């Protein structure tokens, strides 16, 4: 079979452009368009003004765009892991995911790329010199290279899955899963390798990244099904979601365990720089309200009290849970940089440097939040164009 025959063999629904643009859920569709307009406006501003349009500084060089990049690709990794339960590991109850979760993983990965292209100062130079003079000791090089593989594998798995060749699709899925796990753990190691930053240096970050990716992926699956069925779940999908709820409960328990020991080992002995950073974290509202309550305790309590059966509550908890995940990413990136590397006064009339502050610029907000619109529209177009019927294909 040549390439042309293969492409024409991909089953695409015969729908008009109008159908593709008509959302199933008007509110979500409208949000998608407004957010996409924000992204485009922010992108044009960034292209005109470069890094001057961002609120990042010498002391705090990574900002909101890195945060949202981690949010998107991390959630995509989580979706790939959870999606593999049925497709790769053969746990029958999860076969209902079908290609829908694969599509969602792609729809989350591409906005991540759309953000990082605007965060990197010279993306074309990156493509040239990542190839011509690769920095093999650099975690960013490995992360970028691995995510390129992830994109190829995920799209390959999806397209081959559409054609009905489940054997090849599964093989591509295995490649995608391995590359995805390696890529997001490597993204965690970008922080873990920073010898200058004791608050994030060490093996914790790669582990934390994979765990939170699975939590984020589960949240998005609950949110997606909640919106799809308007919280009126058909009986045949409930066993899968009830089982996934229990998995999510376990993951959230693990997350709280991780959080607890990260904090405890940080404040015990109050190691310079690390101790100050952990004390700072404990004093921030976003840590307690967003990360702990919204991101972990509330969804955990709902799952525990309803034994994973209150799916309508879980839809809402997942929405707020994803807000919690956003703050986990935001706080992690900010906390990594909060302790200044320059601790002395270097100009007259300056106060002694204290913890570094960072406020994202309006352009950063527009790009970062606007990329959610990109995710919504990619997913929406995918559901319109392809038959994602969740049939048991194993």
């Amino acid at each position, binding site marked *: 079979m040549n390439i042309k025959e293969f492409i024409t063999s991909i089953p695409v629904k015969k729908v008009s452009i109008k159908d593709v643009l008509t959302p199933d859920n008007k509110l979500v569709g409208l949000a998608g368009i407004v957010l996409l307009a924000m992204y485009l406006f922010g992108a044009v501003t960034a292209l005109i003004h470069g*890094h001057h349009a961002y609120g990042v*500084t010498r002391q705090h060089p990574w900002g909101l765009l890195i945060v949202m990049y981690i949010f998107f690709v991390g959630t995509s990794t989580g979706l790939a892991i959870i999606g593999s339960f049925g497709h790769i590991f053969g746990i029958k109850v999860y076969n209902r995911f079908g290609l829908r979760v694969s599509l969602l993983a792609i729809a989350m990965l591409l906005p991540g790329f759309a953000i990082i292209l605007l965060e990197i100062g010279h993306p074309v130079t990156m493509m040239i010199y990542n190839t011509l003079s690769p920095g093999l000791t650099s975690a960013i090089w490995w992360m970028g290279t691995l995510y390129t593989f992830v994109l190829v594998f995920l799209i390959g798995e999806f397209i081959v899955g559409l054609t009905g060749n489940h054997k090849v699709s599964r093989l591509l899925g295995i490649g995608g899963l391995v590359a995805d796990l390696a890529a997001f753990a490597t993204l965690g190691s970008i922080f873990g390798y920073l010898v200058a930053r004791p608050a994030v240096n060490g093996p914790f970050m790669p582990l934390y990244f994979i765990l939170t990716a699975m939590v984020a992926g589960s949240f998005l699956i609950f949110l997606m099904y909640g919106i799809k069925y308007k919280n009126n779940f058909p009986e045949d999908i409930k066993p899968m979601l009830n089982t996934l709820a229990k998995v999510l409960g376990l993951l959230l328990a693990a997350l709280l365990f991780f959080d607890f020991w990260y904090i405890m080992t940080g404040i015990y002995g109050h190691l310079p720089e690390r101790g100050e950073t952990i004390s700072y974290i404990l004093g921030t509202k976003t840590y307690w309200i967003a990360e702990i309550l919204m991101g972990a305790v509330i969804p955990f309590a709902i799952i525990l009290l309803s034994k994973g059966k209150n799916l309508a509550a879980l839809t809402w908890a997942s929405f707020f849970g994803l807000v919690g995940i956003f703050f986990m990413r935001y706080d992690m990136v900010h906390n990594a940089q909060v302790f200044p590397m320059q601790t002395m006064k*270097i100009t007259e009339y300056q106060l002694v440097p204290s913890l570094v502050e960072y406020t994202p610029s309006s352009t950063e907000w527009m790009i970062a939040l606007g990329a959610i619109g990109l995710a919504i529209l990619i997913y929406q177009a995918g559901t319109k164009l392809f038959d994602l019927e969740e049939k048991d294909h194993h």
Partner: protein
Amino acid sequence: MARYGMALDYKNCINCKACEVACKEENGVLLGADKHRIWVGQNEVSGQWPLLDISSATFLPSQCQHCDNAPCQSVCPTNATYYDENNVVRVNVDKCILCSYCMNACPYDARYVDDRTLTVDKCTFCSDTRLARGETTTACQNTCPTKVRTFGDLDDPNSEISQLLRNREHFSLKSHLGTKPKLYYLT
């Protein structure tokens, strides 16, 4: 080739900041408080009048430490940051993609963004300017009125810096990180 380093007799520093000015002038560093390759750190005087702790009022001139094991170099995805033939840590602006990883990885806050090229800039020990013209001193060293700085080849046992480091006790900043800085503070 040489292995350049610098010894700083930092207790002689009078915080005149002539080194900062000379660096900007010689190397065309942009104006602005955040745009600097070198700086003079100042400790606040501690204690309460009249029992002021005079020994706390010290100045600490600093810059890129030109580490032998530079974290900024190993994290660079395109090898834009490299060790040149004189073991000076340099940035190739053509290869720099401004991912800012090096700025986060540097324990000394020695890197900043040059707004003209939108790439990361840092101290080069005047490699592009004075050394390229055949001079043997850096701008900051040349201008220092109290002779705080001594620049030279650490591999040459007869260089002034090698003799200083043999005869004077010295320390490096954040040496516990294993970065092996080539800036030595004489005590």
